[in-house]
């Protein structure tokens, strides 16, 4: 699972979202995703994070043990 694939997964799960992935250690493990999405409007931060996690269901089981998340309404 590359950083690009994670970005693609989030974007295809949340169509129209803007996704920036930061991989500060360049290890593909401790990554942070900054997601801007109009569909976050009216949702709690918990719900917004759940929406992102749902797009990465399979990946989060193993490879990405620590995904930092920042969500914003676009």
């Amino acid at each position, binding site marked *: 699972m590359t950083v690009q694939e994670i970005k693609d997964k989030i974007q295809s799960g949340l169509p129209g979202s803007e996704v920036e992935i930061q991989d500060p250690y360049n290890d593909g493990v*401790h990554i942070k995703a900054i997601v801007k999405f109009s569909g976050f409007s009216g949702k709690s*931060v918990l719900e917004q*994070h759940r929406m992102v996690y749902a797009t*990465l269901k399979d990946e*989060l*089981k193993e490879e990405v043990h*620590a995904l*930092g998340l920042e969500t914003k309404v676009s």
Partner: protein
Amino acid sequence: MEKTLQDKIEGLIGSQKTFLFMKGTPDAPMCGFSAGVTNVLRSLGVQYGSFNVLSDQNVREGIKEFANWPTIPQLYIDGEFIGGHDIVVEMARSGELQKKLGN
């Protein structure tokens, strides 16, 4: 999920007003995100219970299913799932966490 496991998880969550599932212990966190949440709780002077998921593989996996949340740490207040590291940090910054803890 097995009922005994669910009972165990619910029992832990109900044992204190504020409860944290984490990797390691508050004195010796084993992951940066767990350390981050303990730092927030310490800075707010919060008393809380904690469980080291590294000590029990069943709880480690079970808690993800229980909360429908894929990562650890997980913070609970009054039995309610609050969120993981990023949400806890954000809520502490906005003052929302303090409000929840005060109730």
